[in-house]
C-alpha cells in the first residue's frame, strides 16, 4: 500500500461517475411491452438489429463487469470509494436514437431497472435517472416519479449528438422538474461523432481523434447553449454538473465567453453576470484526468476556473483508462482542495450528506 492509497481512508471519497452496464435483456422486463421485441431482437441477432442499434451496436454487449450491487459495492470499496453515483453506459448515446418513443421507453426501463436493481443508498450506491431529450414532458414525469427516491441524486442528460442542444426551451420541463426535485442535472457525453455535431468531426479516422474532441466539444457547446439561452435565469436554483469531459477546457471557455460577452451583452440581457461567473457555479467531473507532465501545470489550470470548488472526482469506472482518487491526492493541490475535489464538492453537487442521505429529503421528513 503506497502513501496515497493509505491516504484514501483519511478522506471521504465520492465517485461521481461509475457506469453500470445496461444490456437489452436487462432492460427488457422493465420496458413497455411494445418495445420488448426490439430489445429481444438486439439481443438475439445484433448484426441485423435496427431500432436501438445506436445503443447496442452489433457484437455488443459484452459481459457486465459486476453482476450484483454487492459485487459493485465491493469493487468501489476496493478503490477507496465511500459513495458512488451510478450512471449509464449504453444510454450515454440515447440522444442518437432516431425513434422518439423507443428512446423514451428505454429511458423509463433504465430508470426502473436502475432504481430496483442497483441503487442501495444505505450502502452508498446512488444514481441518476436518465432524461430522454426526445420527450421532455415524459422525462419530466420520470423525474417527478423518482423525486423522492432516497438513492436518486441526479438527472442524467445524455449530451452526445443531442439536437437541439440542452439549452433549448423545449427542455424546460426537464430542467424545471429537476430544479423542483432538488436534483442536479448531469451533462455527459461519450465518444460519438455526428455529421452536424459539433463540427465536421465525423471524418476522424481514429478513436484518438474522437475521444480527444467528442466529449469536451459536446460539453462546451451544451454549456454555451445553456448559458446563452438563459438557463441560469430561468432556473436559478438548478445545480449543473458536467461529466466525462475532463476540465482543462474550462479556462479557455471562461475567458472566451467573457471576452465575447463584453461586446454582445445585448443578446443575453437575462444574464446578470459574466458567463464565467455562472460556469464557476457548476461542477466538473475529473474524468479523464488530464495530468500534465508537470503536475503544477494541471493545478494551475484548475485554479484558473476556481476548480477547487467546482471539480468533482469521477472515476469513469469501468471505462478504459478509468481514474482513481489516489491520482488526485497525488497532485500538488492543498490538502483542503484535495478534500473538496475527492468528496466535499460532490456533496454539494448532489446535495447529500457524508452518508449519502439526500438533504432535501431529510428536510422534508423533518418538516412533516
Amino acid at each position, binding site marked *: 500500500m503506497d502513501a496515497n492509497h493509505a491516504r484514501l481512508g483519511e478522506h471521504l471519497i465520492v465517485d461521481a461517475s461509475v457506469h453500470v452496464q445496461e444490456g437489452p435483456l436487462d432492460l427488457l422486463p422493465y420496458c413497455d411491452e411494445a418495445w420488448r421485441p426490439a430489445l429481444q431482437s438486439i439481443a438475439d441477432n445484433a448484426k441485423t438489429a435496427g431500432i436501438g442499434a445506436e445503443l447496442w451496436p452489433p457484437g455488443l454487449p459484452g459481459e457486465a463487469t459486476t453482476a450484483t450491487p454487492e459485487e459493485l459495492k465491493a469493487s468501489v470499496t476496493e478503490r477507496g470509494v465511500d459513495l458512488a453515483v451510478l450512471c449509464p453506459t449504453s444510454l450515454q448515446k440515447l440522444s442518437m436514437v432516431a425513434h422518439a418513443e423507443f428512446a423514451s421507453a428505454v429511458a423509463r426501463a433504465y430508470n426502473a431497472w436502475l432504481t430496483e436493481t442497483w441503487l442501495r443508498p444505505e450502502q452508498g450506491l446512488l444514481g441518476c435517472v436518465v432524461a430522454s431529450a426526445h420527450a421532455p414532458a415524459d422525462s419530466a414525469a420520470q423525474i417527478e416519479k423518482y423525486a423522492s427516491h432516497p438513492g436518486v441524486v441526479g438527472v442524467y442528460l445524455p449530451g452526445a449528438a443531442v439536437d437541439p442542444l440542452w439549452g433549448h426551451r423545449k427542455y424546460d420541463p426537464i430542467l424545471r422538474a429537476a430544479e423542483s426535485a432538488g436534483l442536479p442535472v448531469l451533462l455527459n457525453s461519450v465518444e460519438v461523432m455526428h455529421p452536424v455535431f459539433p463540427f465536421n468531426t465525423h471524418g476522424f479516422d481514429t478513436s484518438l481523434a474522437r475521444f480527444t474532441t467528442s466529449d469536451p466539444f459536446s460539453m462546451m457547446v451544451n454549456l454555451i447553449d445553456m448559458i446563452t439561452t*438563459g438557463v441560469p*435565469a*430561468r432556473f436559478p436554483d438548478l445545480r449543473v454538473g458536467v461529466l466525462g469531459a475532463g476540465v482543462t477546457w474550462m479556462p479557455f471557455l471562461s475567458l472566451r465567453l467573457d471576452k465575447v*460577452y*463584453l*461586446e*454582445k*451583452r*445585448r*443578446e443575453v*440581457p*437575462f444574464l*446578470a*453576470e*459574466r458567463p464565467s461567473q455562472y460556469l464557476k457555479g457548476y461542477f466538473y467531473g475529473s474524468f479523464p484526468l488530464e495530468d500534465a507532465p508537470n503536475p503544477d501545470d494541471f493545478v494551475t489550470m484548475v485554479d484558473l476556473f476556481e476548480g477547487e470548488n467546482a471539480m468533482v472526482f469521477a472515476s469513469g469506472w469501468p471505462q478504459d483508462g478509468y481514474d482513481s482518487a489516489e491520482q488526485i491526492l497525488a497532485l500538488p493541490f492543498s490538502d483542503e482542495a484535495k478534500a473538496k475535489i475527492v468528496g466535499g464538492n460532490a456533496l454539494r453537487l448532489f446535495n447529500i450528506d457524508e452518508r449519502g442521505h439526500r438533504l432535501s429529503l431529510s428536510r422534508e421528513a423533518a418538516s412533516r
Partner: protein
Amino acid sequence: MNEGHVVGRLEEFPEGSHRVVTVGRRRIGVFNVKGTLHALPNLCPHQTGPLCEVKKVTGTTQSRVENDWAIEWAFDKEIIACPWHGIEYHVPTGRCLTFPEISIRSYEVSVDDGEVSVHF
C-alpha cells in the same frame, strides 16, 4: 458643490445630443438626456477607451422574469456603448451594464444664466 468649469452655452447641448469637451487635462462627455444634462469621464475603465465618443446614445435590451425572460427594449436614449469593446453604460447613473460591480463617476452639471458648467 465643487468648483465649476464652464463648458459651453446651454443651446450647444440640445436634447438628445452629446459632446466631448476638454477641461484642463480632462475629457468629459456631456449628454442631454431627455432635457437633463449629465457629464461622464471620457474614459472606459475596461481598457481606457474613449467611452463618450459614441456615434449615438441608444437604448438596450433587458429581460425580466415577469415577462418570461423575453427580450425587451429599455432605457431608450440613455445608453452608451464604448466604441472600443462595446461595454455599455447607463448615462444618467454611470452604471455599467456589462460589469454590474462597476459604476463610473458622474460630474455634477449646473446651468447658470445659460452657461453650462461641470463640477469637480
